[in-house]
């Protein structure tokens, strides 16, 4: 079944150097490129075939690459992930999709007990080059289980890597990068940013491992990922009006976390606020705060502050603006750090 599609593999992919794409388009192009370059790649999940996915990330891919390589599965997430294990054992590079973050819960057994452990269990003989795409985080007034932030849960599991892009450029390049790695990667797509356009340098992705400074500054570092990066950039603009020069660090990789980038940035600014949508307790903000404190304790001007979601189930759409860190709450967090005085 694969033969019909492999003929296109050598077709040269020519792009203008910089294109203006939405994140949805960038992800779609990344999958297209990976399917073209690597005949072992398979893209599948609920409604990923003919419909092109509920967010249209896989739009047109089945028509172009064939229904053997881009296909719909029955509606069962454990099945999708369990099947991915067997496909990886058979030499394929699965890129499954879980339609929404909260739908990863029924697949946790296969993700945690199988995908994350098979390389270890088999002493490296059965690698799991599985890139699990998860439309993630809140902000679109969706029903229950459609706005979850699972990064801490995944990052806690030995054997998984976790990444989240914040703009179209990184979405394009990080997805291609993740899909070319030999280890399982949970790829968390900030669904509220799918339709935001931005420049994508199709040829040069830059450095794809580690964090990225998206706005340099001198007085304080905002650490964020996913949809919170754009919000932190807005906050930085507002703070600048008051003469506060904020650096925004997009963490990108939530496992492994780029500890050196945190040390470099906060070593310079001496103050840090971590922002995430996930609940406070045992969130990744705690891990980030510890890494900063460990490395920058002597020069820190204030304890690392966290501005996060609350320890509540993700609320209904009417209340989600109360839950997700907004500009005011982040500014107040910055203020607390700037006003901190040692007792």
């Amino acid at each position, binding site marked *: *079944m*694969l033969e019909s599609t492999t003929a296109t593999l050598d077709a040269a992919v020519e792009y203008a150097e910089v294109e203006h794409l939405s994140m949805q388009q960038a992800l779609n192009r990344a999958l297209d490129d990976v399917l073209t370059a690597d005949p072992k790649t*398979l893209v599948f999940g609920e409604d990923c075939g003919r419909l092109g996915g509920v967010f249209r990330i896989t739009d047109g891919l089945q028509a172009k690459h064939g229904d*053997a*390589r881009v296909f719909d*599965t*029955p509606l*069962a997430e*454990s*099945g999708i*992930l*369990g*099947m*991915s*294990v*067997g*496909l*990886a*054992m*058979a*030499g*394929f590079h699965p890129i499954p999709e879980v339609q929404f973050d909260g739908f990863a819960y029924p697949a946790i*057994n*296969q993700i945690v*007990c*199988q995908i994350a452990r*098979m*390389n*270890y*269990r*088999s*002493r*490296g*003989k*059965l*690698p799991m080059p599985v890139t699990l795409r998860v439309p993630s985080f809140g902000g679109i007034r969706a029903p229950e289980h459609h706005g979850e932030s699972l990064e801490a849960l995944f990052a806690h599991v*030995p*054997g998984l*890597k976790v990444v989240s892009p914040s703009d179209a450029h990184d979405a394009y390049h990080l997805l291609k990068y993740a899909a070319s*790695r*030999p*280890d399982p990667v949970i790829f968390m797509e900030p669904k509220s940013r799918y339709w935001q356009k931005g420049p994508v340098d199709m040829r040069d992705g830059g450095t794809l491992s580690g964090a990225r400074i998206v706005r340099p500054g001198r007085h304080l570092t905002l650490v964020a990922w996913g949809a919170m990066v754009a919000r932190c950039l807005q906050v930085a603009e507002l703070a600048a009006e008051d003469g506060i020069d904020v650096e925004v660090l997009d963490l990108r990789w939530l*496992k*492994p*976390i780029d*500890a*050196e980038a945190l040390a470099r940035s906060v070593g310079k600014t001496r103050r840090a606020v971590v922002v995430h949508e996930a609940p406070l307790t045992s969130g990744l903000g705690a891990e980030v705060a510890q890494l900063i404190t460990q490395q920058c304790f002597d020069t820190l001007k204030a304890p690392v502050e966290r501005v996060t979601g609350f320890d509540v189930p993700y609320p209904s759409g009417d209340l989600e603006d109360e839950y997700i860190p907004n500009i005011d709450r982040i500014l107040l967090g910055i203020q607390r750090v700037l006003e901190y005085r040692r007792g």
Partner: protein
Amino acid sequence: MDILQPGPVTVGTAPSASETTPGLAPEQLRELYSLMASVRFLDTSAVAWQRQGIIPGYAPELGQEAAQVGSAYALDLDCDFAFPTYREMGVARTIGVDMVAYMSTHKATWHGGMYDPQESRLAPIQAVVAGSVLHAVGWAHGQTLQGTPGVALSYFGDGASSQGDVHEAMNFAAVMNAPVVFFIQNNGWAISVPTEKQVAGGSVSARAAGYGMPAIQVDGNDVVAVYEATRRALDHARTGHGPMVVEAMTYRRGPHSTADDPGRYRSLDDERIDAGKDPLERLRKRMLADGIADDDFFAAAHETARSEEEAIRAGIEALGPRPGSEMFEFVFQETTPSLETQANRWREESDHA
């Protein structure tokens, strides 16, 4: 041949009973007996090893020798792949897995065992009940995509059949027409819970109809019947007819594991009545009656089993713990800075101590 009820639970395009099923040659029957004798001796010895402190624990498969040896004997090892649970020692032995490497899981050397799964055609030992059933489906679908003739043989039990993953696996396999055989060893017990409190609808194979899959329920203590049923199912899947269910009705004669105490949930009388005929004794009588083996053959088979066990035990006793660095080495193909830091600190601190 004791293939029970190929009819009532069979739907779709099951291979008909009239299909040519070449009988097993005498030397194959002798091989099957020898395998079962080796498995029986190693299995009962492993329980003794645990009592002697050679290994910390073991999950015996006493009574399931015919189900395991007969089914695995039907595999084509050039292209097929078996997906075990934690109780498939007989499968491993039958397909020629390095048995020291296999038994090392029970020595607590390495969870998945020390054997190479790809070379052995046996997935790593699996402790999650029904954990590998979906893997078999994915692997099988991979064969379809590659146009290769391999069939996945997925082992699980009556207890595992309660897991939702088994439903998802059967449905996925049927929808995708995947070349996979679901081989259920219905051994009567899921630790302390009997099948009647575990499996609604009377049997696991009865469910196949709901997925449009054919199924065979077979006397799991008859090695020839098990082989024949599995061979048919593998042929069915290999020839593009999709998945199939084989349910081998057998009996777990031993405890669930060396930590279990069956006296708390069943009596010795129950065991005697329910266990049915001993799979080895059955084949022995049949071979004697058919004149294809004599007492010398059986004595030699038992002597081979004994010396095999001796060599495996020596290998297990000689097996030291793996270097602690392997805890870190196999987490990823590409390690992370944090993991390297942790490994370095572990090394420094353990050297210090």
